[in-house]
């Protein structure tokens, strides 16, 4: 079974530019989560999709962040315009909807550097 994949591995952009991160969850996983880890801090929840619907987006920092999951498969997270404080590692995770334990499988992360 293929794991969660994320693209790109690393992105370096200038302040004010736009970046789109992509996450492909494990096939058949309805739950998809985005997290972010800023250097020196803990991993923080951003939002949660169930299929194509946003279940919880309470962790999204501000309206420069837009997440989508059209068709309930892969998801994208767009940052526009990017600011310096957006730098960090963005993780995606997925889990079965029916799994009562809801164990989440993490992707390798996308390291975003805003200069």
């Amino acid at each position: 079974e293929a794991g969660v994949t994320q693209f790109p591995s690393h992105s370096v952009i200038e302040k004010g530019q736009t970046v789109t991160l992509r996450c492909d969850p494990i096939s058949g996983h309805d739950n998809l989560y985005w997290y972010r880890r800023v250097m020196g801090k803990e991993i923080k929840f951003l939002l949660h999709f169930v299929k194509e619907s946003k279940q919880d987006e309470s962790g999204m920092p501000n309206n420069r962040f837009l997440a989508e999951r059209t068709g309930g498969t892969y998801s994208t997270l767009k940052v526009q315009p990017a600011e310096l404080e957006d730098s960090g590692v963005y993780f995606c995770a997925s889990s079965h909807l029916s799994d009562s334990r809801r164990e989440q499988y993490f992707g390798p992360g996308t390291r975003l550097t805003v200069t």
Partner: protein
Amino acid sequence: EDKVVQSPLSLVVHEGDTVTLNCSYEVTNFRSLLWYKQEKKAPTFLFMLTSSGIEKKSGRLSSILDKKELFSILNITATQTGDSAVYLCAVSGGSYIPTFGRGTSLIVHP
């Protein structure tokens, strides 16, 4: 607000040593405590603990939860260089969304 505190932040040991990593937490409507191992990339799942006093074991790793004192420990016996990683503790409450600690960075020297 849910909170997870891990200690120590960093640990350097030699192969063969035994280490204990600590995780204390505050959470509303506790559901589970999770341990992850993060090497270069994705955090990989180690244990999920939901009940006090029941030790979970996987090879040289073991973990136990104390829901009364609100903490968990992760033990690694006879450490190997391959155990070098950041160990993350997370707790989930009513929403199933985990709150993570900052992690403990473990370095095992040969």
